[in-house]
């Protein structure tokens, strides 16, 4: 099956939905790739490069309401990817495998990338609808986003 190409590529050929798009935020180029599996989401965020970066797995861990994140390949719990993966699970309710090469100590890049990713996930219908907006506070020192 042939796939179509466009600036915002959405390849539905062959079963899995693969969505690729690029955005420029604050003169930074962010690349996004989202692969929708029936019970999971794989996502990649590239910051000014096409390196895969570090890989994280995140999911709800029952019976608690919390989300656990595991560094699968490289990285550590204080890397941006770990935080983004955790918050995507919280907002989407899906299991997430996230690859990201966003550098450490870049809270604004992290926040912008996460926002763009969530916008796309909502647009694609992969997330639960939010009944009311939440307020976010960014801690620039730790690079954490608090609800």
């Amino acid at each position: 099956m042939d796939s179509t190409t466009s600036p915002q590529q959405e390849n539905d050929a062959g079963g899995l939905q693969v969505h690729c798009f690029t955005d420029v935020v604050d003169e930074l180029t962010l690349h996004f790739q989202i692969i929708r599996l029936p019970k999971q989401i794989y996502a990649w965020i590239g910051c000014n490069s096409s390196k895969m970066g570090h890989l994280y797995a995140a999911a709800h861990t029952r019976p608690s309401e919390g989300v656990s994140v595991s560094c699968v390949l490289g990285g550590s719990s204080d890397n941006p990817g770990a935080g983004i993966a955790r918050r995507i699970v919280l907002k989407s309710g899906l299991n997430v495998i996230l690859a990201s090469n966003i550098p450490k100590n870049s809270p604004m890049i992290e926040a912008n990338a996460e926002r763009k990713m969530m916008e796309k996930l909502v647009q694609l219908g992969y997330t639960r609808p939010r009944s009311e907006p939440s307020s976010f506070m960014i801690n620039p020192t730790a690079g954490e986003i608090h609800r």
Partner: protein
Amino acid sequence: MGSVEQHFPVPHRSFSVEIKGNKTDVVISGYNDHILVIATQIGTMGTMLQARKEEGMTSEPTFHVSVIFGKRDEPMLTACARQLIEHMSSSGSARPLVLSLGLKDHSMETLKGVVSYVLENRIW
């Protein structure tokens, strides 16, 4: 079979095949520093392995394969990753492989099928 996407900086190929009667979705992505192969029959990424070529003292290349997420006691999955990294290396690619296998069975026939279809649609 799917065509290679090249406008986006990460080329990828996505397709679906039947292996031993099971629908198998495959996505191959070519990052700058890794090749990612996802082959799933169960709707999730399943067990994830990393395979890379190691520069050794001898002229023959050596490869390191390890499970980085999931089942660690399935030697056929490791063998599948090993086959793929050897093929990648022999075709000149130096990039490590991240292989994700979510399969209903780990028989030799299934894994040979996965290797065959991935090589048929390789992007390295």
